[in-house]
């Protein structure tokens, strides 16, 4: 596992490993599972359908997973999205979609580059 590639992709590897008691094997497994996680796609679907409730659900799920895997930027953006939707500002949350897309893509590319 190449830490610098994952770090460049927006993952705080040391923080994530700390949560997994230092197990690189488990981190690799979980990052592999992240690629199959549907919450980012569900958020995009919710944006397309203009469905605030589904948007909150997807953003919240992505927030939880990205937080646990120390994907710093993705976690920040989803946290803000959740706050905005809960505050009733769905349009502003929807406006984060592009930024979230680029953060998500970086993470995804880094994981794929490591061939986990």
């Amino acid at each position, binding site marked *: 596992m190449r830490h610098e590639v994952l770090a460049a992709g927006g993952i705080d590897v040391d923080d994530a490993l700390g*949560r*997994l*008691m230092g*197990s690189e094997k488990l981190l690799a497994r979980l990052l592999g599972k992240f690629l199959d*996680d549907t*919450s980012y796609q569900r958020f995009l679907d919710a944006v397309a359908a203009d469905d605030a409730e589904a948007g909150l659900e997807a953003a919240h*799920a992505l*927030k939880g997973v990205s937080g646990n*895997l120390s994907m710093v930027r993705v976690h920040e953006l989803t946290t803000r999205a959740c706050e905005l939707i809960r505050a009733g500002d769905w349009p502003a949350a929807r406006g984060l979609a592009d930024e979230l897309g680029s953060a998500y893509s970086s993470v995804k590319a880094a994981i794929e580059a490591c061939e986990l």
Partner: protein
Amino acid sequence: MTTQTGAGADGARASRILVVDDEEINRLILAALFEEHFEVVTASDGQEALEVLLADPGGFAAVLLDVMMPNVDGMEVLKRLKPTGLLERVPVFLITAERGNAVMEEAYRLGVMDFIGKPVVPYVVVRRVLSVVELFEARKRLSLTVEDQRLQLLERAEQIIELNRGMIESLSAAIEFRDGESGEHVRRIHDITRTMLLETPFGEGLSAEDVDDIALASIMHDVGKIAIPDAILCKPGRLTAEEFEVMKTHTTQGAVLLGRIPQMRSLGAYRYAVDIARHHHERWDGRGYPDGLAGDEISPWAQVVGLADVYDALTNRRVYKPAFTREESLRMICDGECGAFNPRLLECFLEVEPAIARLYEGAEAPETEGER
């Protein structure tokens, strides 16, 4: 539901915890944190969690529960667990990034143990869950110990009550032996008194506990005879006027004697015992002794024991008289040959007398004497 084994390095803790989260990645992280300490069972939504928990309510040391899940969410799980009482026995931790909001307040109200923040901080989560699990286990052990001790105390209290009763019966019977009674007399007075108070309107207003106390007290009605000299107590045939005056003092002597036993005073039966000992020879028309009380001045329990004593003396042989038949005994009582009784008391007595007579049947032939 999936189970990941990891019963613990020491193998001492065989218990399981339930991790509930709709995201597999989150479940795997929590499972990894706890598999060293517990067997970790996972559920991917609230419905599954409820099924697992309710199928085996005692089977988990703790539950880690995500709040936001599709269908049945974490709060709904809490709401459904609340009425089962499970939340008092199994600590439930809510996993949430949101703190200090209305959800938290509601969760505490429903009985959640604590919150685990997301993203999880491993040593904090593990420490906190392990501490609470230990606390619950200690509490369970303690409550089992307390329950054990409570049962032991209860058993001992019952033994003491039995012992008290046994000693009172033995002492009273020993006194009866002096004037040649079998000891059955006190037993029968006890049974007649109990029957009268429990099964006729004469016992109205008395609780079952009162009746037990009165019946126990009735056993001691003649304790004062211990102070009467043998020459009088055991004299066959008629007593002289002077002798009869001495004999009559067994009522007052009995009350004094009972009053001198300090331990007696704490017994519920005490005040009845003193009253009965002193007044079981009073009569409805005021012509009894020692105080010449009349009518309702005589307590109901003293009236009942007075009548029971006369009935038992008549139907059994005494040193100064033969045994009379039931019919003859009842006629003598109703005709006032043994002094006047409360008409209502007699009415109640005649009602249950056949049942009382059946209590005597099968008992060995009475060989008794001495109602005076």
